[in-house]
């Protein structure tokens, strides 16, 4: 079986125009031939656009960015190191990270909401205005869609011949996707029954994140163990 030798980091470098002209042209030719890399690259472009758009269209609170930055770049890294590492992030990492940004924004939104003092989860029930609730639901829906899109890309990759999953691994993956899907479905139903319980929205997005991370992990192992990391 012919295996793709393009590294994950190279796609990120190509997007950031850090490759030489010769390397860029070679990679462009490869992208025309390799469907998996082309899909990954297109996704990377889309996600970069999404991330850039988020930074300008939604104004995060001042204390939000350090957490997002740490998530993207790893806590404790110096500023220049963060920058260097950021541009080398693989498409699969960016995929989950972009969704995480949406989640982070949603979580901040949730945490700023006023609390009532009744019910089993008394610190998270809100009595907020309908407009604010609608706005939040819209953000949650957008975040859900980002996760679904990211998961779809990973699934498409994992179903392709390039992924070459061992049969037992495929069975384990499918079984655990059912578990993850069931968790999402249960939380979603619970939130529909208790729409004012916004902590369930947080839980819902966390369940989506877990599902994407599952697929990301398998995709990463597929790449690493077949291409020597």
């Amino acid at each position, binding site marked *: 079986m012919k295996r793709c030798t393009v590294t994950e980091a190279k796609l990120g470098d190509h997007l950031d125009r850090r490759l030489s002209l010769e390397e860029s042209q070679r990679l462009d030719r490869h992208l025309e031939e390799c469907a998996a890399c082309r899909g990954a690259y297109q996704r990377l472009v889309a996600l970069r656009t999404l991330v850039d758009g988020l930074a300008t269209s939604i104004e995060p609170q001042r204390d939000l960015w350090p957490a997002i930055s740490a998530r993207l770049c790893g806590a404790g890294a110096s500023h220049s190191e963060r920058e260097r590492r950021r541009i080398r992030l693989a498409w699969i990492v960016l995929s989950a990270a972009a969704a995480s940004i949406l989640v982070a924004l949603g979580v901040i939104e949730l945490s700023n909401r006023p609390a009532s003092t009744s019910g089993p989860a008394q610190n998270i029930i809100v009595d907020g205005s309908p407009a604010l609730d609608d706005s939040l639901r819209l953000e949650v829906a957008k975040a859900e869609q980002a996760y679904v899109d990211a998961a779809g890309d990973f699934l498409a990759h994992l179903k392709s011949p390039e992924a070459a999953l061992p049969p037992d*691994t495929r069975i384990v993956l499918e079984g655990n996707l059912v*578990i993850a899907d069931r968790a999402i479905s249960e939380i979603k139903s619970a939130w529909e029954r208790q729409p004012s319980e916004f902590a369930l929205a947080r839980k819902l997005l966390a369940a989506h994140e877990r599902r994407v991370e599952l697929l990301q992990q398998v995709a990463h192992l597929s790449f690493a163990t077949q291409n020597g990391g």
Partner: protein
Amino acid sequence: MKNRYIIFGILIVSWSANARAEQQVEKRVSSNHANGKVEIDIGEGSIQVIGWDKNEVEVTGTIGDRVERLDVRKGKRKVWVRAYLPKDGEAREAELVVYAPHSNDIDVQVFQGPILVSGIEGDIQLETFSGDISVSGPCKRVEAGTVNGDITVDSAKRSAGADKVRAKTVAGAIVIKNVRREVEAQSISGPVTIAGNSLTKVVAKTVSGNVRFDGGLSRLGRLEIDTHSGEFIGVFPADLSAEFDITSYNGVVDNAFNPNAGSNQDFIQGEGDPQAEVKATSFSGNIRVTKQSNGEGATAQAAAGQDKKER
């Protein structure tokens, strides 16, 4: 009777074919750097890495007949051990024991098969699709990932314990013991068990897998557990000082530090400002928090006290 002879004959033939398929290997290179790295990539098979005092890397074992060659090459800071495919081949098979300088970092990638590492003091990164991962001995940092396998990390032989362990599996069990600072464990359906004293950060996330934590947290330490339907059992020192934030939407919360307080608990345990933070959420899993017996608690507290002095 005739059938028995036929079956026996088939077994003999397949055994000898198997015997022919494998070839013995024994390679050795000197390692230029005491703090270098050994990278191993073999495809299918098993890898055992053992740290030793010699400043060289030795590889012994067998490789399958579909392996074109096994390279053991030396760079400035690295030694590579790699099984090469013939151009049209699909599988690489090797069962190797690799002796490496104990101070080296280790990076192993196996497509399918178990990985065992012992006696290594550097950073360890291990990945396999399908196979168990086991690390023992005085490692510094461990990152381990598998889809269908168990992960066990126990750095008991080093007095300080590993600094940081990150373990990810999908369906396997995770067991992590004797870590000094940080543990991150993630599984979908497999159970997670973490034990250690004076940890600074513990994060465990599962969907249906159960989680058990047994130990103490350092000052400003943080424990964060998230499950969907998995149960969480936390066993803490009786004199724990921590801020608790525990919620199970559809499960039962039974907290020895705050009995009969319902399924959503947000309170401070201990006198004065809380020294640590315990956060556990589950959708439908039960959450049970208990106190260690006196002996266990004293040990955890002593370790936490030592940690405080170090700060």
